[in-house]
């Protein structure tokens, strides 16, 4: 009887022990698989597509060249040429860098005086750059016969440098231009600029206005 009691007690103890072990063990073991399971359950729902910025080709830069006529004050009208690079910041504003040059002719004094030379050939080289801000004033369609072309009339103002008589001259340039855009990626330009700087080449210091009219082609990229 006693042994039966003892066996019962042992069995009960063993059962409890086993029960505790199983509970503990499973709970210990289950900690990880449960999490894995939870992940597996949620994963299909988490099939989230990342919203990336749409890849769209932008065409905010414009590069091109131009040829024209530059009237260098006191030195006659001469051919000029240059390159320009523009960045369109908004539909109205753009920033432009232009680099150009020309070669000064003779003053009327030199023409009349015959052999008189005021400047050497090197000193006659006229080079400039300007960084400008442009504003597209009138954007609209222009009609050539029955065909419509996109076009912009823009105002432009900038600062820069002019090298003339082998000297630097701080230059302000103001102008107006017309851009005809037959295709999205290229445009024709007609430009009128006034390059204004102080000069003392002919003795007294004075403000000179150097007017340039040019025509050019640009490409958008």
């Amino acid at each position, binding site marked *: 009887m006693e042994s039966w009691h003892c066996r019962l007690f042992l069995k009960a103890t063993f059962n409890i022990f086993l029960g505790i072990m199983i509970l503990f063990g499973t709970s210990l073991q289950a900690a990880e698989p449960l999490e894995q399971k939870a992940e597996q359950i949620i994963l299909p729902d988490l099939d989230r597509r990342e919203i990336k910025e749409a890849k769209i080709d932008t065409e905010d830069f414009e590069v091109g060249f131009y040829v024209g006529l530059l009237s260098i004050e006191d030195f006659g009208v001469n051919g000029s040429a240059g390159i320009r690079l523009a960045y369109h*910041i*908004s539909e109205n504003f753009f920033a432009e860098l232009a680099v150009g040059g020309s070669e000064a002719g003779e003053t009327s004094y030199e023409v009349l005086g015959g052999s008189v030379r005021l400047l050497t050939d090197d000193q006659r080289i006229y080079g400039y750059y300007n960084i400008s801000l442009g504003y597209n004033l009138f954007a609209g369609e222009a009609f050539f016969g029955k065909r419509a072309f996109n076009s912009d009339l823009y105002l432009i103002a900038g600062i820069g440098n002019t090298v003339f008589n082998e000297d630097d001259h*701080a230059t302000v340039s103001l102008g107006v231009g017309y851009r005809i855009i037959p*295709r999205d990626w290229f445009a024709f330009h007609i430009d009128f600029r006034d390059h204004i700087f102080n000069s003392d080449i002919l003795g007294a210091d004075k403000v000179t206005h150097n007017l340039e009219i040019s025509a050019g082609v640009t490409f958008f990229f």
Partner: protein
Amino acid sequence: MRISLVCFILVAIFTGGAAVAKDEYVEVIVTDPYLEMHTGPASGYPIFHVVERGEQVTILKRKTDWFKIRTSKNVEGWVFLNEMKQTKTLDGLPINLSDPTLAAFLKRDWEMGLMTGDFEGAVSATVFANYYPVRTLSLELSATQAIGNFSSSIMGNVRLMAHPFPEWRASPFFGLGMGYIKTSPDSTLVRSVDRDDPVANVTVGANIYISKRFVFRIEYNNYKVFTSRNDNEEVEEWKAGIAAFF
């Protein structure tokens, strides 16, 4: 033969603008009641076509805040950013188009711009590019030309700038920089030699967000020119300008 070749090249040039592979284009569905299509990338160009809700359109390219789209009926035109933002991708997700705002300004990586001002009596023009590895620090490269009545100089600078309040719309900055300055006297003066000197500078200024991609910048610089003569030269410069950020 030669004429036909020239014709072919001309045709290729004129049609070549759209020669990008078609599957690269983004396709979207209109969810606004309608999209207005302009003939060109500015509000001044006339509206010539309207796309209705539910129609699928292809985005071909972007110019500033305008998108060139093609409809299912092959009509091509330009749509403004605000209208374009209301479209959804084919998966039904809202489209993410870059729209420069104050939030974008606060997270900018690059800044490029131009400034003009007074360089100790001379007119100065500066171009600069600024890179922000973190929001509070930036590294700047700049080139300045200053043209005075008696001499002109050209200067390059590298600068480390601290932006203590990057979350402000008008954010002040301080900087320390080093560079090189080349000074050439005017040829109408008595001939003297060009000078090349190292230069160090301290700067104080502020970036002020205006709108879209525009930042207004104003700054004061104090330069120390380490001349080969007995005395170093000190130059003060004030300048202001605009920058665009990316």
